[in-house]
């Protein structure tokens, strides 16, 4: 089963880190990724640029795209990074989520990734 771990936070939180603290959390994050690679459970991990960098693309009725600045929702906390893992069970996904270093500062949302497979109906 593949799961996405969404790591939430906001600029205020990230700016509050002392440089050495941030370095430590980043190193811990790298270490966790190395461990997941070694266990054959790692699919990918990505950090997202700040919400300020977000662009919104809408298609108007005439079919022409309109691009505007800004996030879709002005949320207090937004996605800062995400990991994709492939694990045996939901329990294992939750265990890994609890070990995400940023989980000490903000929530980590665990979502199953939809797949094309269907049971025999």
């Amino acid at each position, binding site marked *: 089963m593949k799961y996405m771990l969404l790591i939430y936070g906001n600029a205020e939180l990230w700016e509050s880190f002392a440089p050495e603290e941030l370095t430590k959390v980043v190193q811990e994050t790298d270490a966790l990724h190395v461990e997941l690679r*070694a266990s*054959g459970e790692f699919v990918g991990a990505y950090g997202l640029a700040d919400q300020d960098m977000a662009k919104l693309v809408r298609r108007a009725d005439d079919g022409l795209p309109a691009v505007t600045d800004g996030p879709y929702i002005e949320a207090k906390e937004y996605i800062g990074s995400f990991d994709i893992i*492939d694990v045996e069970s939901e329990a294992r996904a939750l265990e890994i989520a609890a070990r995400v270093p940023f989980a000490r500062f903000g929530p980590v949302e665990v979502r199953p*990734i939809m*797949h*094309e*497979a*269907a049971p*025999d109906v």
Partner: protein
Amino acid sequence: MSVDTRLEDLLRGLAPQVTGALVRRYGHFDASEDAVQEALLAAALQWPEQGRPENPRAWLITVASRRLTDALRSDEARRRREEGTAIREASDALLAPPADDQAGRDDDTLALLLLCCHPDLSPASQLALTLRAVGGLTTPEIARAFLVPETTMGQRISRAKQSIRTAGSELRMPPPAELADRLPVVLHVLYLIFNEGYTTTSGPDLIRRELTGEAIRLTREVHRLLPDDGEVAGLLALMLLTDARGPARTGADGALIPLAEQDRTRWRADLVAEGVELITATLAVAPLGPYQLQAAIAAVHDEAPTAEATDWPQVLALYELLERVAPNPMVSLNRAVAVAEVHGPAAGLVLLASLAEDPRLTEHHRLESVRAHLLEMSGDREAAVAGYRAAARHTTSRTEQRYLDARAARLLRSGG
């Protein structure tokens, strides 16, 4: 069938025999398996150009043995450099062609399958290792089939091999009592491989669907090696009877078509006939087991010319037996459907209400979709729509979600 496909089939068939022969002689499962992969690759590249050797198996064993001794020698040399001690050179006599017979090869294939399905490994690792070492698939192929990066799959396989080494397991046929314990794990792995392929209904996932064929091929092989085992025969029959419906299982748009609505003329009659014959013969002689019962249920469905003609009392009796032999909440859910068909939806719903207390089923999308189906049968349209919607929200299968949403939408429209 193209030349390439025939070559691939030949190589995959030989892979476990060659690996078995190497591991038996040299004892290094991990390194032997790598060496065989290299030999298979060399064969795939060289044979189409230079022609197929007279004895492909001997060719592969010779090439793989050379790669293996090279690898072991360079390991030895490194260790010698590091430790400064002299170690006896591997003898060239080890490269002599094998003199083993067909029985030895058969034992090797089965022993290799048991090794790959080692109880210390997780199911995902058992699957990957079986496909590589016994199925002869490459790591990139397996990675694509499971939609994970190649490095992830490579790591999973090498860790699995390491666990086997740590467990100190050897390639050998276990004594009958141990074989009886470990065979179910092998059958479960083959069943999972089949399902991985079979449940793929759309997308550019041809390689996933190939898993179905691979599972059937390997199960056929196990059946050939253990013809008297009822559960092996039962699993093979179950796969054949399920695969037979493949052509009718999805519509032109890739949407799932449930059993009751499938165009049965599109079922593979040859597979139905083979599966029915196999399960009928097996049930007559072997002790009853869960795969045989599931195959028997599949056979009842496959033999009905129309959904209405289904012998539901027979299906129900088989589910009752299956629930006794192998209790499992999913089996109970299916029994509820059979109960509804035989005794009416109200009886099925009563049974479901008792199942809902099982923590493994509470809010499970299958429980919700079965309940919705029985509510639809009983004419409670509104509750059925709500049930299908809830089930759709709780599944992680996109195909099933589309199907459940479509059921809800159709039901809404039919009510006007």
